[in-house]
């Protein structure tokens, strides 16, 4: 059984790796060498798209992990109705992101959306805001949705980490005279590090790779001014006048390298030692 596992999984992984290689070499059939990469660098939209992507990932991951730490701490406490709160938190996670994205298109709607109605009623804005049509608001609006859909998963990962910490550790800390804050910093956070690691790495990957939110909420806007590297790539390949699969594949390779670099750096800084396992 164990041997089978060792044989089966690499086979699957290998076939997947070969798939990915196929996608790239297969697309570059004419053997144009590095020409696609050279053309990629010439694309006018590229700097904007890269900046968008950095903002998109950094803002969502930072806010999500920060807020989720608090939410996980809250849900780790025992209080009446805790189970209901957990169930509520499940909903945005369980719902498909494309559905949630459509929902927010409706909520953000200029004329019929409830967000503008609510803000006008509360006198927080003087006139309706065209959230998804205005260059200044569309990215924050999309980031808000990104945070919203990332929170449940992140909170649950951290919650699982918290609940895996045995109560005896806290008792020991209390016996040693540690304050609540000191116990949190010296006991909880270090023990939570594996969970935090998983949460951050997976969120970076997911959010970088996220497609439906930007695809749906940015639907109305022409050009690439609010695209991330992922939606930009898809548009190049399938939707824009370019329809340039070689160019898109080049960007796809860049995308993978970027995220590979990010994860390697992260694993370094958190001194992830695989030998511990």
């Amino acid at each position, binding site marked *: 059984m164990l041997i089978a596992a060792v044989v089966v999984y690499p086979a699957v992984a290998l076939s997947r790796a070969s798939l990915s290689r196929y996608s790239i070499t297969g697309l570059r059939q004419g053997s144009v060498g590095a020409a696609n990469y050279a053309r990629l660098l010439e694309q006018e939209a590229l700097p904007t798209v890269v900046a968008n992507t950095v903002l998109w990932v950094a803002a969502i991951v930072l806010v999500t992990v920060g807020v989720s730490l608090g939410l996980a701490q809250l849900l780790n406490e025992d209080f009446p109705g805790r189970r209901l709160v957990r169930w509520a938190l499940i909903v945005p996670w369980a719902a498909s992101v494309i559905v949630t994205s*459509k929902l927010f298109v409706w909520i953000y709607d200029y004329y019929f959306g409830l967000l503008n109605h609510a803000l006008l009623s509360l006198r927080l804005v003087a006139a309706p805001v065209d959230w998804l049509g205005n260059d200044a608001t569309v990215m924050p609006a999309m980031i808000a949705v990104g945070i919203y859909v990332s929170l449940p998963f992140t909170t649950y990962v951290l919650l699982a980490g918290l609940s895996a910490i045995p109560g005896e550790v806290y008792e020991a800390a209390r016996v040693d005279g540690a304050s609540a804050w000191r116990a949190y910093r010296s006991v909880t956070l270090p023990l939570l590090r594996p969970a935090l690691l998983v949460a951050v790495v997976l969120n970076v990957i997911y959010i970088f790779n996220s497609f439906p939110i930007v695809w749906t909420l940015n639907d109305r806007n022409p050009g690439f001014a609010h695209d991330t590297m992922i939606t930009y*790539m898809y548009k190049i390949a399938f939707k824009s006048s370019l329809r340039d699969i070689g160019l898109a594949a080049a960007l796809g390779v860049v995308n993978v390298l970027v995220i590979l670099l990010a994860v390697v750096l992260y694993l370094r800084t958190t001194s992830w030692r695989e030998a511990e396992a």
Partner: protein
Amino acid sequence: MSAARSGRRAARRVALAAAGLALALIVLAPYAVMVCTALKPEAELRMTPPRLTPIAWRPANVLEVLRDPSFQGWLYASLVVALTSTLIVVLAATPAAYYTARHRFPGRSAFLLVVLVTQMFSPTALVVGLYRQFFDLGLVDTYAALILTNAAFNLAFAIWILRAFFASIPREIEEAAAVDGCGRVRTLVQVVLPLSLPAIVTAVIFAFIAAWNEYIVALTLMADPARKPLTVGITAYVTAYVQHWNHLFAASVIAIVPVVVLFATIERHLVGGLTAGSVK
């Protein structure tokens, strides 16, 4: 215990419950909009100022969607794809994760790196290659294409999560089982797997939800409208030409309910933390 102290504890519980309630309301607010919109008649969709709740509640929207043959096709596709790919993921990921967590073998680090890298590969980056691959195999527009793709994409994640959990199970437990005369397979089945039920359940949930909610591969691979899964299919209710927001959200509610129910029934396994009491 003094009265003052128990009073403080009660106040703390009330504050926590209030915070929890506020959190739940904030989290659910958008979906309240969804449900209410799903129950509005067509004429109420374009009202200014907009209302949250319908004036005339119209549950018939849900029935209309359920009776829609297109919707039935999408639902069937989603069920087939999600269930089958989840099964494949669990059967493949559990032994692989256990083996890498417990044993050193040549290329183990490389193997784990491959797991990470394959997971990082964006479905979007692969989607054209996948399309060509399945085209060559004659599998475009088949459930098999989606099942295989979903299983492959979710496998890495399941291994990643399970491996971390297996690694956290103290070796002493298995050694104790060995001392008690358990073989390796028996140790795995009777000791390790029950202990790691929360992690396996977590992996199942992730795999199922990921497959159920997968969008971009289905968008690209499935051209036949009758075979599209729900995520892609239901967007046909709102396009540049027709804007049946009420039907879109009625369908969305139906699509979301099974996953939420599944979650709710197994939620307590998620954070079981079964290891806490195992080592004294």
